[in-house]
């Protein structure tokens, strides 16, 4: 099997008139990887995704999917499943007819019954799309994306509007596809999903990457936090702790384990009870919230 990246984006620019939606974006997605493309609203995720999917032409830069131009649908699309952000089904067709139509057009082979089973829509096979709930439409969308077990699957906000059972079922199906070697590109506003599932994350803001790497690499860019309160009359805490307005203390640290041990040792040595002690590692949410202060990656 080829070791070349499944997706190779180099110096991508997307402009709409004077507006620069994406500026000099470069990244690669390796085979079997789950790559999450995250970002603030209007960061350029959708434009990037649309170019990589082959829905839109790049203003400049090169984009290769399986080593080919993504606009070469006949070559690339049989290997690629796309779950769009908005469903895009005809309300007058039934669920089974929709899957059969789109499935046949992908150029892959599969059975309607199998994919209906994956998304638990077997009972709705003969129901018209107009009568589906929002969550059921998302599941139908996922069903067409995984029809024929494609090598590369784009999941654009896949779990929006899904209940917890449907989310779990969807992620189980994704894990199964990954076990078979499928590569996944994910966008989501549920950061815990990205934190939990993604091998690597590209975090976009104002058309460029502000961070790219594994969850551990991203969260390492910000300090973790230790918080505690001291009883009246306690000695001054270690020098790295700063008092916050509610009377408690906070330590910001890039080495949570060492600093927490130092604090606990200090408390033990001084026989001090640390009230409300908490030690929180940096989360993806924190990186996301601080995105404005992060410089653009070159």
């Amino acid at each position, binding site marked *: 099997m080829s070791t070349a990246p499944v997706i190779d984006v180099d110096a991508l620019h997307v402009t709409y008139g004077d507006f620069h939606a994406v500026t000099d974006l470069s990244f690669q997605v390796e085979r079997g990887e789950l790559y999450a493309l995250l970002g603030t609203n209007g960061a350029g995720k959708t434009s990037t995704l649309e170019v990589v999917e082959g829905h839109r032409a790049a203003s400049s830069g090169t984009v290769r999917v399986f080593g080919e131009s993504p606009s070469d*649908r*006949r070559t690339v*699309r049989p290997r690629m499943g*796309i779950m769009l952000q908005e*469903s895009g089904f005809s309300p007058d067709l039934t669920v089974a007819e929709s899957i059969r139509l*789109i499935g046949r057009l992908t150029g892959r082979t599969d059975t309607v019954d199998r994919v209906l089973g994956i998304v638990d829509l077997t009972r709705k096979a003969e129901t018209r799309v107009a009568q589906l709930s929002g969550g059921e439409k998302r599941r139908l969308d996922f069903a067409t994306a995984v029809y024929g077990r494609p090598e590369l699957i784009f999941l654009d906000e896949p779990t929006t509007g899904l209940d917890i059972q449907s989310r779990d079922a969807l992620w189980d199906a994704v894990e199964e596809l990954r076990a078979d070697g499928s590569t996944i590109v994910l966008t989501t506003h549920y950061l815990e999903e990205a934190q939990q599932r993604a091998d690597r994350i590209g975090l976009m803001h104002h058309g460029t990457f502000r961070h790219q790497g594994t969850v551990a690499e991203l969260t390492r860019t910000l300090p973790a936090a230790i918080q505690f309160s001291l009883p009246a009359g306690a000695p001054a805490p270690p020098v790295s702790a700063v008092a916050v307005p509610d009377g408690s203390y906070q330590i910001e640290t890039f080495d949570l384990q060492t600093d927490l041990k130092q604090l606990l040792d200090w408390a033990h040595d001084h026989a001090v009870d640390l009230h409300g002690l908490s030690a929180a590692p940096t989360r993806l949410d924190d990186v996301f919230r601080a995105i404005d202060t992060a410089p653009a990656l070159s």
Partner: protein
Amino acid sequence: MLPIARSELIQIFRNRAVLITSLIMPLAAAAFFIYRRDAFETLGSLGYIGAILVFTIAAFTLYATTVTTLAARRQDLFLKRLRSTAAGDTAILTGLVLPVSAVSLVQVALVLGAFMALSGAPADPLLLVVAIVATFVMMLALAIATAGITNSPEHAQVTSLPLSLGVVVLASWIGLTGTEDLALLKRVLPGGAATELVINAWNGGVPLTESLLLLAPTLGWVVVAVALASRMFRWEPRR
């Protein structure tokens, strides 16, 4: 292309509004013209009735339905969905317009067949076929172009009205007044020369060379319509 055409046919027959406005109304109008054929022949000629029948179906069954369905498919993001597959743009568009084109051809064959059975065959059937095909290709391409400026199926009722009514009114104008006056204007308007071709093909008595000259503006409009369609058609809603 064929799976798309098949699904499109299913959708046309499942959508009652489309079924009534695009299939039943033109047939009802055609039935009225055939029923009152003696009165319309007195006003114009048998060729006039033939032209009105052709343009009623071209304007309403073919043109208006195509504008409405393409706008609906785009609004539903169904076009984007189709473009997410391995199907090419030409295959997608052909698949989408094939059923309504086929339905239009069947309608025109049925309606003109009934008219012929009652009033006799046209003088030049081959010329009639050429005129019908040119008219249908022009109206289909104009429909694809009009769909480009139509945001929704509801909006199609507004955007498709000028051309659908316009070509029927023009066919009536030419059928009732001939082309002795304002010949150039009548012939360069969309469908004008094609109307005259249908009338000549039906009534006969016009030298073939004269009729063939009318093919130039007719085919000219086909070229203009196809160029407009390729420039104006949009696959996704405006954002």
